[in-house]
């Protein structure tokens, strides 16, 4: 038999089983004791009967005219006879017998006292120097039926008491496990992003430490996430400032020198440093996308983030190419605004890069959280589209340039439980490429 997984079922079953066994044991012991007591009482009645009948029988037999004749007593009234008796002389001749006595059940006399055959309990006694002998028989069936009645009396309550006891056990177990159930419900109700402490008042002492361990684990997890976040921020800072210094110095060198070759070298250095900056930036972004926390405890308006990102990109070279469409109402989301900014920036930069030099890029965020970036560039063949999707799934960190940008977007999309939809040409158009995904949005109500 498989032991049930539920603690409640286990407790119910084990306690129920033990209870049944104990009850059965108690009933059996009681039955045995009662049986012994009962035998004593029955034996005493048997002996009493013999001793009472014998003097009467002696008087009767001695006073007879015809000696050695068997006399059967007629029943006074019709009734069941539990006791039958036989009175015999020393030669074994029957002198007197009760009306229902069957001489075949009486074994030959072998002295006073109790005897037992397969079917009867017997008591024998003798009088007048052992010349008149009485044997009283009682059928064992009678005793057995009485014993059975007592056993039934002891056993029958089991049928009622046991189910009641089982129900009581289940209710008690359920009641005792109620705090645990509430604790579990609280755990189930919270999202994966919620790492706050789980309240566990009222938990049984056996399970309390478990909740404590869970809470301390959650706290450590939260700390680890925070550490990772601050590492990404610090690493960005630690790398950016010296890079900024070197780039600025190269730019100063270029504007201060009159030497063309030196100016070209300064430009080369600057370009390399900028490439290095972009590369490390992407690595940090990927680290954030894959490791950091993407859902926050508080929510923010995504429109502001989209505006800043588009402003930012517009500043560095391609103003007016981005058409930003935002709803009038705030789009509140608990998505990390920085993660959304990374996602948005990568998609827009890709759309700008691959969309041709002059065609506009549409960035749309709807009130329901649908985020779409589309350009009017050349149609991407469907097999290329499939390959792009496949690469997204791999999210290879070794990919360079745009590949990493898409991998970052894919990583974020996957971790917020959304799906990246690539379409080319754009819906309802003959050209262009569109990337869309659904962002987690809070109900505005």
């Amino acid at each position: 038999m498989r032991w049930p997984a539920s603690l409640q079922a286990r407790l119910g079953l084990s306690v129920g089983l033990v209870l049944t066994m104990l009850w059965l044991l108690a009933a059996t012991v009681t039955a045995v004791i009662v049986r012994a007591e009962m035998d004593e009482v029955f034996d005493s009645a048997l002996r009493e009967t013999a001793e009472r009948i014998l003097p009467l029988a002696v008087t009767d037999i001695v006073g007879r005219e015809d000696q050695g004749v068997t006399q059967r007593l007629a029943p006074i009234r019709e009734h069941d006879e539990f006791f039958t008796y036989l009175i015999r002389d020393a030669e074994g001749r029957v002198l007197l017998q009760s009306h229902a006595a069957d001489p075949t059940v009486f074994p030959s006399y072998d002295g006073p006292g109790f005897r037992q055959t397969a079917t009867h309990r017997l008591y024998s006694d003798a009088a007048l120097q052992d010349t008149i002998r009485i044997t009283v028989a009682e059928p064992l069936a009678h005793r057995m039926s009485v014993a059975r009645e007592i056993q039934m009396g002891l056993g029958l309550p089991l049928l009622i008491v046991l189910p009641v006891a089982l129900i009581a056990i289940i209710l008690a177990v359920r009641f005792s496990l109620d705090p645990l159930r509430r604790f579990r419900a609280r755990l189930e109700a919270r999202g994966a992003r919620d790492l706050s402490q789980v309240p566990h008042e009222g938990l049984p002492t056996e399970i309390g430490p478990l909740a404590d361990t869970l809470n301390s684990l959650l706290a450590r997890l939260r700390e680890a996430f925070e550490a990772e976040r601050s590492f990404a921020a610090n690493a960005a800072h630690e790398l950016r400032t010296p890079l900024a210094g070197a780039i600025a110095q190269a730019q100063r060198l270029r504007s201060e020198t009159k030497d063309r070759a030196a100016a070209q070298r300064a430009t080369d250095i600057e370009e390399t440093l900028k490439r290095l900056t972009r590369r490390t930036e992407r690595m940090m972004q990927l680290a954030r996308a894959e490791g950091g926390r993407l859902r926050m405890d508080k929510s923010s308006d995504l429109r502001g983030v989209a505006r800043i990102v588009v402003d930012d990109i517009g500043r560095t070279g391609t103003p007016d190419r981005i058409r930003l469409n935002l709803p009038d109402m705030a789009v509140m989301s608990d998505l990390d605004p920085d993660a959304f900014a990374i996602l948005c920036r990568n998609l827009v930069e890709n759309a700008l890069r691959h969309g041709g030099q002059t065609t506009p890029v549409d960035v749309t965020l709807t009130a329901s959280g649908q985020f779409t970036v589309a350009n009017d560039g050349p149609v991407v063949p469907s097999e290329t589209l499939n390959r792009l999707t496949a690469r997204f799934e791999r999210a290879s960190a070794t990919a360079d340039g745009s590949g990493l940008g898409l991998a970052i977007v894919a990583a974020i999309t996957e971790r917020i439980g959304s799906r990246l939809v690539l379409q080319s040409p754009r819906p309802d158009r003959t050209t262009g490429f569109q990337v869309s995904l659904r962002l987690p949005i809070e109900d505005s109500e």
Partner: protein
Amino acid sequence: MRILLIEDDTTLGAAVRDQIAADGQSVDWVTRLDAASDAMAATSYDLILLDLMLPDGRGIGFLKVLRTRGDVTPVIILTALDQVSDRIEGLNGGADDYLVKPFDLSELSARIGSVARRYSGNPNPILTHGPLDIDLAARSVHRDGRHVPLTAREWALFEAFLARPGQLLSKAQLEEKLYAFDAEVESNTIEVHVSRLRKKLGSAIIETERGMGYRLGRP
């Protein structure tokens, strides 16, 4: 313009200082917030370039204190914190603009110009003054359609007059706009630059109030 640069990275700070100086502005460069407070107590600045992570505190806190005190000096944040949330915090803290490191020095110059123009009340970089067409963003002056080359110092002086049209500026005020704390100021420098400006842009461009100072001439 007199600019306070608060940046603890010496390589970047030096390049930024040189760039601003090359634009003809005077710049005081400090690497700590307490030094910045001292500098601001000593003189008034037209603009502050503020790094966010400094050895003795966070720039954002400094900015908030500044704004709480009612100081309206324009502030451009120079930050290595590239996250949008940091920038939102900076802008909400009272910054006028921000630049994420690394940035182009030419972009920094443009941002300084644009923020300064917004503060002077006219964000349009194109001005006309009599026969002069002035492009504040491109730092160019055309007189009757012909380009007039100005040195950085001459431009800085001219810009100081343009920023306060009609207002009398003392020689000491002009010197403060042109020179940082440590720069040597020759006693007749302002006179020399004013006379060069008049030669290039027409004698009526700057009027002299004897013993008081100078002001921008009527167009």
